């Protein structure tokens, strides 16, 4: 590790805010890219299951 202590790591010779904001925003963006489709999948499956149940109740002879 090139940094002697945590303070130095956060400060980064005066460039700390730029580096950390870049990484922070990127992590948030990547996390959103990952979580959004997972949540969407859950909502989709729930929706499809509900619709399937409703259709099954409506005309039970077909199933």
């Amino acid at each position, binding site marked *: *590790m*090139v*940094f002697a202590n945590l303070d130095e*790591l956060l400060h*980064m*010779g*005066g*460039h*700390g805010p*730029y*580096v950390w*904001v*870049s*990484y922070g*925003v*990127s992590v948030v*963006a*990547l996390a*959103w*890219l*990952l979580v959004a*489709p*997972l949540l*969407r*999948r*859950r909502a*989709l*499956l*729930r*929706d*499809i*299951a509900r*619709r*399937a149940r409703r259709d099954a109740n409506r005309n039970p002879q077909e199933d």
Partner: protein
Amino acid sequence: MWAYLERLWHRLGSPRHFYDLAGWWLPWLAVSSLLLLGVGITWGLLFAPPDYQQGHSFRIIYIHVPAASLALTGYFAMAVAGVVVLVWRMKMAEVVLQSIAVPGAVMCALALFTGALWGKPTWGTYWFWDARITSMLILLFLYLGVMALGSAIASPVLAARATAVLAIVGAVNIPIIKYSVEWWNTLHQPATFKLTEKPAMAPEMYWPLLVCALGFYLFFAFVVVLRVRNAVLEREAGARWVRELAGEGR
């Protein structure tokens, strides 16, 4: 061998098989991308030596360069999928085309944002109308157009075909845009500002970049596959296998 490839192609063309096959890829993509990203970012952030001119601000490169490269690759991938959509009418290409747009636009925005933050300590300004920055901004506009058109058309098939046309037209335009912006920049360039990359990076700076870039690409593929699977579920919502899948509860 050929027969195997042909079978694979046909399986990829069928939504259900694609869904299953992609589901098998998912864990590999998840583990490899997150692992590489973790290693690459830790390496770049904590262990790579500081640049002798830029100090620590150069560490932004480990996000900036992979994001910028993916933004461009993503757009061309959309255009290739667009050709497949229009020529072969392949269902899965339609889905892939539309699943790339949002992650690609996010990468493009990320490249611009990190570039601005890198610019402040390096050149003393967040934004500069440099040829490369401007081209990236226009690429973001192209992405926004594709996204807006895709969400404005209700029928998924027609939306995919319309965005296919737009993605292809945009991809044909990208080299022209790039050339025009470079020319425009030489006309208006003030002499005091010069953005050039150093010819060679030290290996201890270069290796983490390579790991990060690979991690970003795999992560992008991972996210696109997740989106593709969602889109397949949405399109095939009436099919028996989708209903059974949903009925099983996850």
